[in-house]
């Protein structure tokens, strides 16, 4: 994909198995987030193919943008968690989680609300159901945002630097929730700078540099024996901090 003349992500191909947790790491500007945002078409790639389950969306250079209906179908397979939470500030935690259940899945209100309460409980925030995001800490907001994304029962959860806007201690409570999701078998693609999380939770680490995948592999192997000098440089920069 491109921003003007700048090619942000070039010829990246990634296959994720059901239940797999993939961590994407790499220096800033490597195109990690752009790649993630191409998956649910928050950015439109110049060309490429996205396949989830038995749904495929093909985008070719010079072809008209995919139809709204196709885009909605694609997005229904992905749940997304943003660096900045992006909760709806005028809605309570419960309403944040219920809105798309009602409007996208067509669930009746009582059903969606009880589902939302279950999810709030799952992220440890049952008591925050009626609070507005502005009255929640950053860590709480991010957990609500995770519940909101889970509510649509997506096939894959996308995390775009979910802890980068949080101080390290608060970030832990978000990572804890993500660990639990991984344990429950949720398929996850996580763009992150949290190497400990990538090491302990992910099944595979993907290193992106300059808009391309430099190398990938199981965490133990990749972190201990990186193949490329660029990966070593990046890892030592993060670890020696």
């Amino acid at each position, binding site marked *: 994909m491109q921003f003007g003349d700048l090619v942000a992500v070039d010829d990246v191909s990634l296959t994720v198995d059901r239940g797999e947790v993939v961590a994407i790491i790499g220096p800033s500007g490597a195109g990690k987030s752009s790649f993630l945002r191409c998956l*649910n078409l*928050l950015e439109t790639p110049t060309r490429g193919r996205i396949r989830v389950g038995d749904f495929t969306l093909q985008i070719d250079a010079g072809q008209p943008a995919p139809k*709204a209906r196709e885009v*909605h179908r694609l*997005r*229904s397979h*992905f*749940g*997304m968690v*943003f660096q*900045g*939470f*992006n*909760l*709806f*500030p*005028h809605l309570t935690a419960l309403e944040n989680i219920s*809105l*798309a259940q009602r*409007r*996208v899945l067509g669930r009746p209100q009582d059903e969606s609300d009880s589902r939302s309460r279950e999810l709030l409980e799952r992220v440890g925030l049952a008591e925050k159901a009626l609070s*507005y*995001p*502005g009255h929640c800490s950053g860590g709480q907001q991010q957990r609500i*945002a995770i519940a*909101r*994304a889970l509510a*649509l029962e997506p096939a894959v959860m996308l995390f775009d630097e979910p802890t980068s806007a949080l101080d390290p201690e608060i970030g832990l409570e978000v990572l804890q929730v993500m660990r639990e999701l991984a344990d429950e078998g949720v398929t996850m693609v996580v763009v992150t700078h949290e190497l400990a999380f990538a090491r302990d939770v992910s099944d595979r680490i993907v290193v992106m540099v300059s808009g391309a995948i430099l190398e990938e592999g199981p965490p133990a192997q990749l972190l201990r024996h990186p193949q490329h000098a660029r990966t070593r440089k990046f890892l030592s920069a993060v670890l020696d901090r």
Partner: protein
Amino acid sequence: MMEYLGYIAIGAGATVGLTAAAFVIGIALAVPVEWVRRTAPPFVRGLVNAAIDVIRAVPNLVWLFLVFFGMPQFGIVLGPWPTAIIVLGMYSTACIAEILRGGIAAIGQGQWEAANALGLRQFDRARFVVAPQVLRVTIPVLATFAISLLKESALASTIGVLEITYRAGYATQRTGDGLTMFLVAGVIYLLLSLPLAFASRRVDGRLRARFSLG
């Protein structure tokens, strides 16, 4: 003397009625206008922008005279009230559309992305995510506009709408006491706009306490 005070005060009904009518028209039309402006192809968008600019650039007094004295030359004769409502209604539409544009621009990119990622359709996104937040940020601006519209309605006196200013002028001709009559008119305008300002601050404060925008 006292009888003229009552005579002027009765004009408050026409002033409020004209202002309210123009404001309601403005809200009712500005929402679809802004929708068109955001979704239509560039050519249509350009036309809408041009119309808004023209409406706002020409003084309302000139618009009133154009419609009231000019349209009859095309065989379209409108009375003072329809003329005033049409002109101020168009003016409100243009101004409120601009206010909405500013309000929409104030909503963070992340809100749109979150709505899109959740798969909300365009209309649902507008209705459940964007509109409530736009309302929240634009309430003080809309109230300020309503107050300025209240004052703008005095222009309708020039084409014979019997509102406050017209009546104060008439009373002045009859009594020669322009100071008293226009002081009364001024005080009535003040009394009409104070509740608006008060209500706006109250609603704004209440919403602000409940949530802050992301």
